């Protein structure tokens, strides 16, 4: 029988430590919507999404009520649109029409984001892939809820440097197209290496081609719960520290598993995975940076940060894996800057630099995330930063990503404001030495030697 202490512990996590289920993401395959005619394609997409996702938001609300746990976001991910639109779209403008259709669908079924305006080009680009990529800045400027991602490298294929170069230009253009909104377009655009097919988190969610017709993926959260648990072991040794993180991660993930199973049963859609990520929000007490401080750092960025983050990430996985029958997505600790109050403070205090963040991404689950850089940063420099981050992913056989915001008209020391879950960010300094000759080489970086395991 459940005891009062256990009930109180759970409810304290929910009420005071920001425990929530961050997202229920419904993956929908659009492969059966394909048509050579753009209008037919858009109509097919509309009817499929509206049919599959009709009950998503009401089901989410029912589950919230049943268990008394907030489910912050209900979202949709779709098959990468470069594949779906290949036959119908002759130019980038045609793809923008699909983006508008996706945006309308998201608004109709009341989800706050729809992901999958994506291309998978880790080895090379088809004409459709390139057209989609070139349409991204416009698509993000003309829509509110569409999220875009491009996978430009993998451990198996190497890094497509032509795509890396193009993405540097597209990020600059997306910033320009949305300069009236602090270059918000870039906050909805991610460049990946080793992108997972089942990631429920935005902006990088898409419904991979290895997936079925539809699937429920759930992203848990709970940095505040981990931070609070660690307050009780401030002077403890590493064994106690790690055990505490592991146990807490287990409890958090169990809630995700429960919600995922319930949503899957109620909607009649197969359960895919639970993503174990510790995802912060700009709310006070919902910060991964605060966990790092609780482990013993003055600010994230101080010497020891990479080790502390490595420990945290590994224990979250160890605790979470046993709590869920299927684990996937990004699974680890997110270290976005604008979405985490503690990271913002670390940048403002001068403790955290872009280079240290890059080192941290070697041991965490994503990458350079939600970082504002000066609007004067060149496309080549952005491509250089992307190439570095992709190389970390390729060599370490892990997912890495880049979501940079070269804020138009802003310089180091200025701030960008996105509001809501996307938060605000101080503009960070970028190394100003050139990399043009490197970035402008054509072709791809070969796959690393350890990819040949056959």
């Amino acid at each position, binding site marked *: 029988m*459940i005891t*009062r202490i256990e*009930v*109180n512990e*759970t409810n304290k996590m929910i009420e005071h430590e920001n425990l929530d289920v961050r997202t229920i993401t419904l993956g929908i395959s659009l492969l059966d919507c394909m048509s050579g005619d753009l209008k037919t394609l858009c109509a097919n997409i509309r009817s499929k999404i509206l049919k599959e996702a009709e009950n998503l938001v009401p089901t989410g609300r029912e589950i919230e*009520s*049943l*268990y*008394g746990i907030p489910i912050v976001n209900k979202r949709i991910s779709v098959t990468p649109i470069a594949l779906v639109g290949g036959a119908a779209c002759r130019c980038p403008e045609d793809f923008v029409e699909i983006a508008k259709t996706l945006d309308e669908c998201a608004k109709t079924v009341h989800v706050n984001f729809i992901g999958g305006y994506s291309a998978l080009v880790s080895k090379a680009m088809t004409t459709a892939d390139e057209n989609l990529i070139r349409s991204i800045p416009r698509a993000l400027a003309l829509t509110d809820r569409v999220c875009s991602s491009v996978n430009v490298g993998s451990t198996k294929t190497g890094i497509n440097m032509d795509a890396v170069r193009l993405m540097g230009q597209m990020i600059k253009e997306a910033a320009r197209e949305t300069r009236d909104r602090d270059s918000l377009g870039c906050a909805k655009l991610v460049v990946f290496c080793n992108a997972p097919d089942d990631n429920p988190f935005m902006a990088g969610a898409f419904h991979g081609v290895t997936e079925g017709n539809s699937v429920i993926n759930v992203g848990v959260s709970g940095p505040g719960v981990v931070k609070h648990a660690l307050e009780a072991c401030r002077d403890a040794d590493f064994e106690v520290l790690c055990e505490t993180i592991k146990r807490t991660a287990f409890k958090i993930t169990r*809630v995700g598993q429960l919600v995922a199973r319930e949503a899957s049963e109620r909607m009649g859609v197969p359960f895919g995975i639970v993503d174990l990520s510790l995802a912060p929000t700009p709310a006070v007490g919902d910060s991964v940076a605060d966990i790092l401080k609780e482990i013993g750092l003055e600010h994230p960025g101080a010497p020891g940060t990479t080790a502390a983050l490595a420990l945290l990430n590994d224990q979250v996985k160890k605790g979470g894996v046993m709590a869920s029958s299927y684990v996937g997505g990004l699974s680890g600790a997110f270290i976005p800057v604008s979405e985490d109050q503690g990271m913002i403070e670390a940048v403002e205090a001068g403790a955290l630099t872009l280079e240290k963040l890059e080192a941290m991404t070697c041991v965490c689950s994503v990458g350079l995330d939600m970082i504002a850089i000066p609007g004067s940063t060149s496309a080549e420099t952005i491509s250089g930063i992307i190439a570095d981050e992709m190389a970390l992913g390729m060599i370490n056989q892990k997912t890495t990503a880049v979501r940079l915001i070269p804020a138009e008209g802003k310089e180091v020391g200025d701030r960008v404001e996105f509001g809501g879950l996307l938060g605000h960010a101080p503009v960070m300094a970028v190394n100003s030495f050139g990399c043009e000759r490197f970035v402008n080489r054509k072709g791809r970086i070969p796959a690393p030697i350890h990819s040949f395991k056959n």
Partner: protein
Amino acid sequence: MQKTIITVVGRDTVGIIAKVCTYLAGNEINILDISQTIVDGFFNMMMITDTSKSSKSITEIRHELHQIGEEIGVSIHTQHEDIFEMMHRI
């Protein structure tokens, strides 16, 4: 059987249990277990109930108990037992 956990937390006052139990009796909700304590004037109660015979949904029960809580100045939560079972039992 649908086990639902009801928790009541707040400053102690006369008639908290009476109010909650009257509501439960009136809605065919059976109490399986009660545990209650008062620490520093704070009332803390947990009830394990069976809501399967009630004509109301858990959402309605949750909403109405929340309102009763507001009337008497305590916080009342109503949750399906599974969230606690999942979190605290392997």
